[in-house]
């Protein structure tokens, strides 16, 4: 039972009613694959992109939205967020991103709340999917993140446990010990007899020391057996080299996050073919691990051919990775790669099928922007998920409306 929980990668496919065709005309299409934008029409049927061509002739029963040359991108996908699992950070009772007894085996999947206010908020700002992740902890493995489509349906569309998250670096004890723990756990996970896992863990000093459960070991085993993406947050240049060594030794599908000192080991990182998740705006040398931190990070990595995805340090506003991407471009990153880093790169690296790019056969998760999508002052005009136009109302727009009206009554009567 426990075993099946971790070996199965459950995909809840979306169930949609049959919809009429939707034609978006004159869209300046950013495919999301790193290529230049071009203007064409997009035909959507049953939530899926059917055709992309110029001058598609519409039939009378089709719904038509004229993009009038506006930019259209794939819906943005956040590669690391707390959407649906944290409502208010400072209120523990609203948090489901921390586990009591599981470590690497911790999955946030069943905690996802489709009614969280973060969903309409981030969606109205262009985010249509997210990987929600466990929070930072001092143990090197934090647990696994799951993918969720942000359609707010109670019938959740998602992918359970798409990636493991962890960290390597300063934590109050020696990082040498953390590396040792990584190596020992990888070895244990690969040599343990799964049919006798409870007994074997009882005999393992390592498992006893860290109070590891079978779920923890089985999850680590997936990193090697299934090449489950492993997102490792690390910054110091020497730690990045250690991470590369771990990847090569154990054949990991490694993604590095933060990597503020990556420019110091640029060639090694590029040669190791490791994608990264960075916040291009975080140029603060917050710790002695991040002394080389600078706004040039994204441009430097991009020019070395390293695939970049984006995070943001700001809780709740995961759409702000767009502002980060804009700053990345301002400091030397290729524009099309920046769009790719918020869309297709995430879908490809985290194995989210049929999403993340504007191409025939993919679900129509699209955003029509009222300007350059990388300008912070630009907003979505339309957001589509599975070809359905999303209501852009949020709790925030409701409050704005309530307080911009003239009234003699208490505002609690304005709704």
């Amino acid at each position, binding site marked *: 039972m426990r075993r099946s929980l971790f070996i199965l990668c459950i995909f809840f496919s979306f169930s949609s009613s049959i919809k009429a065709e939707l034609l978006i005309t004159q869209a300046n299409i950013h495919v999301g694959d790193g290529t230049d934008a071009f203007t064409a029409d997009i035909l959507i049927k049953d939530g899926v992109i059917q055709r992309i061509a110029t001058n598609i002739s519409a039939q009378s029963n089709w719904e038509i939205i004229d993009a009038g040359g506006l930019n259209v991108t794939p819906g943005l996908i956040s590669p690391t967020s707390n959407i649906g699992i944290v409502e208010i950070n400072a*209120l523990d009772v609203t948090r489901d991103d921390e586990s009591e007894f599981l470590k690497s085996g911790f999955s946030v999947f069943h905690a996802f709340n489709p009614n969280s206010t973060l969903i309409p908020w981030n969606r109205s700002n262009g985010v249509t999917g997210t990987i929600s992740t466990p929070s930072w902890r001092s143990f090197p493995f934090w647990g696994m993140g799951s993918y969720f489509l942000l359609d707010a349906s109670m019938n959740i569309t998602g992918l359970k446990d798409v990636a493991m998250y962890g960290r390597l670096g300063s934590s109050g004890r020696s990082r040498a010990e953390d590396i040792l723990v990584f190596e020992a756990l990888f070895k244990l996970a690969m040599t343990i007899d799964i049919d006798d896992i409870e007994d074997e863990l009882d005999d393992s000093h390592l498992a006893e020391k860290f109070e590891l459960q079978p779920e923890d070991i089985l999850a680590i085993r997936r990193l090697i057996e299934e090449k489950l993406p492993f997102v490792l947050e690390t910054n110091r240049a020497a730690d990045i080299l250690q991470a590369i060594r771990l990847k090569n030794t154990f054949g990991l599908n490694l993604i590095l996050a933060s990597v503020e000192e990556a420019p110091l080991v640029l060639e090694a990182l590029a040669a190791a073919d490791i994608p990264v998740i960075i916040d291009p705006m975080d140029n603060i040398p917050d710790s002695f691990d991040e002394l080389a931190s600078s706004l040039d990070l994204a441009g430097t990595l991009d020019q070395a051919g390293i695939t970049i995805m984006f995070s943001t340090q700001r809780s709740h506003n995961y759409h702000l990775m767009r502002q980060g991407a804009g700053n990345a471009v301002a400091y030397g990153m290729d524009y099309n790669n920046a769009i790719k880093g918020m869309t297709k790169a995430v879908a490809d690296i985290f194995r989210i099928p049929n999403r993340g790019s504007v191409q025939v056969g993919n679900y129509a998760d699209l955003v029509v922007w009222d300007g350059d999508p990388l300008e912070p002052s630009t907003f979505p005009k339309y957001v589509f998920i599975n070809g359905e136009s999303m209501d852009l109302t949020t709790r925030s727009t409701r409050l704005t409306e309530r307080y911009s009206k003239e009234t003699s009554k208490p505002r609690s009567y304005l709704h």
Partner: protein
Amino acid sequence: MLFCAFFLVVGCEKADIKEEVLQTESQAFLSTYQPMASENIVIVNANMFDGLGNEFKDYDLLLKDGKIQAIGPDLVIDGSEVIDAQGKWVTPGIIDIHSHMGVYPAPGVRTSSDGNEATAPVTAEVWAEHSVWTQDPQFVLALKGGITSFHVLPGSANLMGGRGTTFKNVPNNSIQAMKFPNAPHSLKMACGENPKRVYGSRGQSPATRMGNMAGYRKAWIDAERYYEDIQEGKDTKRDLRNDTLAGVLSGDILVQNHCYRADEMMMMIEMSKEFDYQITTFHHAVEAYKVADALAEHGICAAMWADWWGFKHEAYDMVQANIAIVDQARGGSGCAIVHSDDEVGIQHLNQEAAKAMAAGNRAGYDISEARAMKWITYNPAKAAGILDQTGTLEVGKDADVVLWSGNPFSVYSKAEKVFIDGALAYDRDDPKKRPVTDFELGILNPNSARIES
């Protein structure tokens, strides 16, 4: 004084002593800031936002002797270095009214984390400037984002956390050498969750919001007595806490009040009436839009983020139009400020203003870029009490000026040159004209600075 000498010799001696004490107090830790040497510079053909709400095309600006000497089209000036700003933008130096640079420096390590004297709910006696680490590399990063002045506050653990100080962004090796000349101190006050959490968790008062209110009021009652004693010339032992609070009651010290919720802002306004002082600014005013008219009526600024929310319960009701609603209250008489409280945000206040402006216009307001520029120049200067010296491109003011590579409301634009008192404090094109703090020198590689750009 002459009157005293003749009629009330004894009483006046005491008054003299008291005055001397107060004078000593006010003369301690004064600014010793000296502008760097500067050339006469004329920036020509620029697009300008003057910080007063105007936008000019093809305008020239003369910086001379550290001051703005002339602004206008086609200035004819000889003997000055000419910078052609064709296709570029010029604005006043950007000002952040809420910074913890220096008191929470980078790297964020325990040994220099000096922003909250969280040992008692009222610590009006401490001064944030006494915690500032002059080597903080964040000063330089902010400078690259166009920040020429910033106000450093104590944290919000306490009801009354201590004094805040305004600085010129010219890193130097003493605090006094960085202090903005003649800028008033502020008193940092904090509403809501933080004080009651910090002290409630220790089983101390305040543990509730009603405990918060009682805590401030008790402190004001003590301060009133102290202030009266001083005014009456009584021989009162000097008290650092009451010096600060009496400074607020006399109007010399400005109140910078951390307060998220609208209902709490209204309580703080009522309390300011009870004790007869003026609140200058509500900070982190996530719910300011709910009481924007009251803020405008009472002449109180609101310092806000463009879009931060949800990290705590009192930050749950964020609206992106908050800044615009405050700005437009009572026929546009509101005082809206974009602040950072953040070492990354302070580098991009122009982008934060861009988001807030766009959100306001989406909500139906008609806010120009020139108007939005006031949120990061004129209004924070006013809130810091330095508007007579900086914050706009007006003749006679300090030549605190930013030359931007493009429209400052675009993510692609960068501060190319930053002038402070007419001196080139930062030049994107010349590595020698950028400060490097002691901390950064030779730290990763003995032969270079921490970062090279």
